[in-house]
């Protein structure tokens, strides 16, 4: 932990917030069509329907906002799930929640011929919720899935399960494949601000709830037995964490499609910087998550210009080395 005193922790959060805003500006300014800060300000002050201004208003700003809120939500989910499952590798991607959402969308597309992004969002929400219930249910039921490696494997297998059903549906319906593929890769490109606005209330509720339970998360982190001894109603509390996970992971996936690894990497970095106290950790992770996704999204525009790398692929490329490092240092214990 780098920041020990509360004074410095506040400072750290402020700096992270400023960084987030800075990168959001970068995200708005740079891309296939070059724009300037002046045009951006002009587009708000006096909108003249020029191409640049329309791009900024309709494409870049929604995109930056979406990247920020998705990144923040995924990071918070990661913190909660890692503490809940006592597993340094837990995140919504690893535990199969993203795959559940992906399957739901493909199912709706193939069986009911639904193709609008707006509809995808709601269906993804449902899929993520179902997968969350299944995974957390399995881990709560105890059984063989209680240790870190086993819950990770359980999640991986549930991902594999949903993935193979998804592939099966896609193999039977090649016509609509290109629409779904891009969604499945996870991307914040081409999402309208309406999608964000319709999901945002759920995300905000999730963020507030996460902050509200942050001091109790510290108690949970001590272990189930101690937490129970300290008067925490474990069953109810875990249920609440489940609800927050559905709100945040489901909402994030609904907007952007499955984006992996943000939820794994960010909590570890945040812990390194600000320590394990969840009251500081959760906001810090949220900001860092937002920064990571915004930066990854900006980078995604430039790598194979003029087309784009889906940001989910970017985070997987950034995240895998880190995941392997974690698995080598922390995950080797059974």
């Amino acid at each position, binding site marked *: 932990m780098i920041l020990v005193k509360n004074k410095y922790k506040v400072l750290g959060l402020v700096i992270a917030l400023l960084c987030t805003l800075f990168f959001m500006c970068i995200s708005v300014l740079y891309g296939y069509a070059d724009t300037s800060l002046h045009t951006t300000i002009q587009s708000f002050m006096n909108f003249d329907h020029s191409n640049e201004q329309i791009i900024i208003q309709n494409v870049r700003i929604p995109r930056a906002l979406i990247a920020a809120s998705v990144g923040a939500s995924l990071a918070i989910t990661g913190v909660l799930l890692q503490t809940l499952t006592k597993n340094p*590798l837990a995140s919504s*991607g*690893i535990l199969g929640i993203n795959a559940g959402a992906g399957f739901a969308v493909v199912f709706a597309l193939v069986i009911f011929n639904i193709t609008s992004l707006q509809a995808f969002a709601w269906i993804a929400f449902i899929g993520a919720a179902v997968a969350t219930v*299944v995974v957390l249910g*399995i881990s709560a*039921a*105890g*059984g*063989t*899935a209680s240790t870190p*490696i*086993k819950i*990770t*494997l*359980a999640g*991986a*297998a*549930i991902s*594999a*399960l949903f*993935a*193979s*059903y998804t*592939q*099966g549906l*896609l*193999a*039977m319906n*090649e016509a609509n*494949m*290109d629409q779904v*593929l*891009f969604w*499945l*890769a996870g991307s914040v490109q081409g999402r309208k601000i309406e999608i964000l606005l319709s999901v945002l209330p759920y995300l905000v509720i999730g963020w507030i709830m996460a902050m509200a339970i942050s001091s109790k998360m510290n108690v949970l982190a001590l272990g189930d037995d101690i937490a129970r001894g300290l008067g925490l109603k474990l069953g109810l509390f875990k249920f609440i964490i489940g609800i927050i996970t559905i709100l945040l992971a489901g909402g994030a996936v609904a907007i952007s499609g499955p984006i*992996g*690894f943000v939820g794994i990497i960010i909590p570890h970095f945040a812990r390194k910087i600000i320590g394990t106290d969840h009251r500081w950790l959760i906001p810090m992770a949220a900001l860092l998550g937002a920064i990571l996704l915004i930066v990854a999204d900006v980078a995604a525009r430039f790598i*194979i210009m003029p*087309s784009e*790398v*889906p940001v*989910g*692929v970017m985070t*997987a*490329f950034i995240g*895998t080395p880190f*995941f*392997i490092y974690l*698995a*080598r240092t922390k*995950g*080797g*214990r*059974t």
Partner: protein
Amino acid sequence: MKKLKSIRLFNQSVSFLVDLHIAKRAAFICFLAVMAFLLSGSFGESFISPIRVIQAIFGYGDDYTQLVINDFRLPRIIVAAFAGIALAVAGAVLQGMIKNPLASPDIIGISAGGGAAVVGFLALFSDLNHSLTVSIQWMPLAGFVGATLVGLVVYLLAWKDGVTPSRLVLIGLGVSIFLQALTTLLMIIGPIHLAAEAQKWIIGSVRTAEWHEVQIMVPVIISLLIVLSFLVRHLNVQDFGDETATSLGQSVQKFRFTLIILCSSLVASAIAFTGAIGFVGLIAPHIARRLVGSAFGLLLPTSAAIGAFLVVVADIIGRTAFNPLEVPAGVFTAAIGAPYFIYLLLKKPKH
């Protein structure tokens, strides 16, 4: 009292301890697999009775039946059966080695490696008009190389003063997510026909099997199985833990490395021709262990028979249930495998 019989071959370099009572069950499973094999010859566009199938295989019967059976159906069934055998045996060995019942070739990234290699192959050798510049016959080779390489890479990344099973699984998991991202990327930037072709491969199907594929696949798998059967009795010792195995004179790490490579190549040679048929490597060994126990002498042949049975039956269903639409076999192995897997997770541990 168990009736045990030891079988020693080749100057004692191969030995199995076989419980005769349980051996009967294993024989019954093999019988089922053979029946599925014959039935698979019967079903299709036109029904041909199993007896005529046997006649046709041995060269009797009318021209039409012989054409349908020997040229159209038989290669496909053989490919399905051998893919099942290879996947199931690799799964059984991996589960024994990793000592985790949830491990399987699809989970530790070997299948994903094959998938990424095939998509990479299609992307790399497509010209501007989206047609392949080299023969599609090379695709299995790409799949094989990819899967084996990934097996090796996962092993090396998991190495830190030796390889522990759980680290191997976690690293495999990370690598396979990475490879899936790579596959998605290649499919998105590549032409759409590539996506369709790759999709079929990723889900796993035996639809395109032909005789010349059988001629490569079967000898490779059989020779790998022979090598494995020499080695596999050492796995029984590993069940006691690394320390005990070492003190009994086994070079645990070297042995683990050999097995990983053998399993990777076994899986690779199956999925190179069929695509990544999922869950067979996971559930076949489980069912086998239920039936014949966990000593590898009987476990491997029984797993093999169950694996063959599963893939052949999945293929029969896939080709008849939604006629005229063909559903890839991998969808059905997942349909059987997934619920079973969840059952495994929910089951309380015995100790």
